[in-house]
């Protein structure tokens, strides 16, 4: 995933901020402890959100510990450990593995090939640990690259491949067997996946037009290759905005139905403030210089 999912820091309470950092650092620590230092680079805030939602379903208190960190060696950081965090770390690595594979296949990048070789033993471990999840993710990504090769112009269909991945990820990560909770989680994941996919497509539009790489928006909205990229972007902007916000709205509705036991404030902050901030920023409604969230 790409790190679009963040909080609106100024609206968090100090304590909430500390816990959020704890989840973020917790994912990183979880990777470091189980797989070594290098794969930590795969870390993104999206994983912290996944871990936080899954962990919120039980009321075991979060136990933050102060730990030293390789990236900030002097200062001690808050880190939280729980199973949801381990799970989110694994998901992040599985997605990274597939991303590298994709890069090797499509762009024949030497750096990706090297990284892939390095990551091979790690992926073996992941497969042993979470085989069915690896298979399902691989299956949807296969479908995605098939549609990309076909130059798919159906935005719903292509974005659904990533939506399904996150749907699966959210459902498989929950300890609960309650079907209603699974339905809610699935819907939350589905729309998060769709939102991320569309955000990425919108974000990469100019680059893809220049390089000739596939972008669903080019095919869905019949870009003729002559129109300036900026004008094209302006033309499809309100439709894309609508689409992104529909996804956010559905996430909000699903979230309202989730039986959250802890960290409600942080999760709501991300879904209602962080996602909207990101959407507006990417749509260019905001000055790009406005800082990152953490």
């Amino acid at each position: 995933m790409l790190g679009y999912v963040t909080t609106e820091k100024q609206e968090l309470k100090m304590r909430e901020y500390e816990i959020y950092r704890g989840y973020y650092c917790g994912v990183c620590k979880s990777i470091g402890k189980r797989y070594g230092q290098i794969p930590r680079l795969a870390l993104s805030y999206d994983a912290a959100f996944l871990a936080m939602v899954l962990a919120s379903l039980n009321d075991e208190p979060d136990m933050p510990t102060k730990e030293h960190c390789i990236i900030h060696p002097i200062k001690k950081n808050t880190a939280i450990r729980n199973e949801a965090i381990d799970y989110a770390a694994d998901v992040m690595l599985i997605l990274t593995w597939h991303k590298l594979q994709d890069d090797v296949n499509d762009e024949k990048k030497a750096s990706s090939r090297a990284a892939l070789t390095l990551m091979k033993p790690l992926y073996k471990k992941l497969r042993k640990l979470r085989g069915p999840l690896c298979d399902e993710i691989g299956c949807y990504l296969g479908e995605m690259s098939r549609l990309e090769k076909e130059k798919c112009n159906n935005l719903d269909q292509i974005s659904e491949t990533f939506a399904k991945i996150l749907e699966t990820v959210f459902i498989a990560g929950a300890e609960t067997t309650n079907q209603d909770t699974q339905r809610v989680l699935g819907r939350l994941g589905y729309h998060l996946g769709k939102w991320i996919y569309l955000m990425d497509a919108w974000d990469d539009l100019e680059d893809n037009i220049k390089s000739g790489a596939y972008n669903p928006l080019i095919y869905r909205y019949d870009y003729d290759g002559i129109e300036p990229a900026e004008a094209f972007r302006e033309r499809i902007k309100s439709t894309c905005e609508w689409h992104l916000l529909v996804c956010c709205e559905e996430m909000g509705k699903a979230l309202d139905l989730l039986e959250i036991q802890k960290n409600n404030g942080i999760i709501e902050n991300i879904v209602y403030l962080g996602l909207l901030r990101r959407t507006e920023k990417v749509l260019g409604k905001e000055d790009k210089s406005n800082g990152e969230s953490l």
Partner: protein
Amino acid sequence: MGNPYEILGVKESATDEEVKAAYKVLVKKYHPDRHANNPLEDLAEEKLRQVNQAYDEITDIRKGKTSNTYGGSSSSAGYGAYGGRRNTVSPEFAEVRRDIDANRLNEAAAKLQRVQTRTAEWIFLDGMISYRKGWYDDAISKIQQAVYMDPQNAEYNQALNGLRNAGQGYRNTAYGRGYRSNDDMLCTACQLYLCADCCCDCI
């Protein structure tokens, strides 16, 4: 059924006004208008039923058995009860609609395919299947087409408006929960301060 105070998220010592305020917030959250045509509609319905029942119970306890739920005396008929929002429905689509309501989308689509004439209702229902699937691009164009073919139909218009304004609903909730647009100068200043603050964090 759990503790009614817990369901409303208030302490037992809360004043009547506080209970009422909490109740209103939850009713808004689970309101049928918000969750209409959504695959999770049944869960919202259940939540609303619990909230109504909890509010009923609390008012019963406090006022000596005189119920005070909005819109009726029994909990099931409380504020914002579901149902009765459809106008004209042709019988040939009754089963398709039942399937859609029960989230049996593949069955609904298969039944729809067996109907030859593409009436406005056919296209509308096809659009609603897409909507439930999360295929919003497809859904909005089909529902638009249904409205175009039958401009007076309240159901189609309502669905179209709901879909068109979905983002606005989200935005309103976000503003209600403290989202500040960056046009606000003071806020920009805050952000700059926060950026500086972040930099300090890193050191």
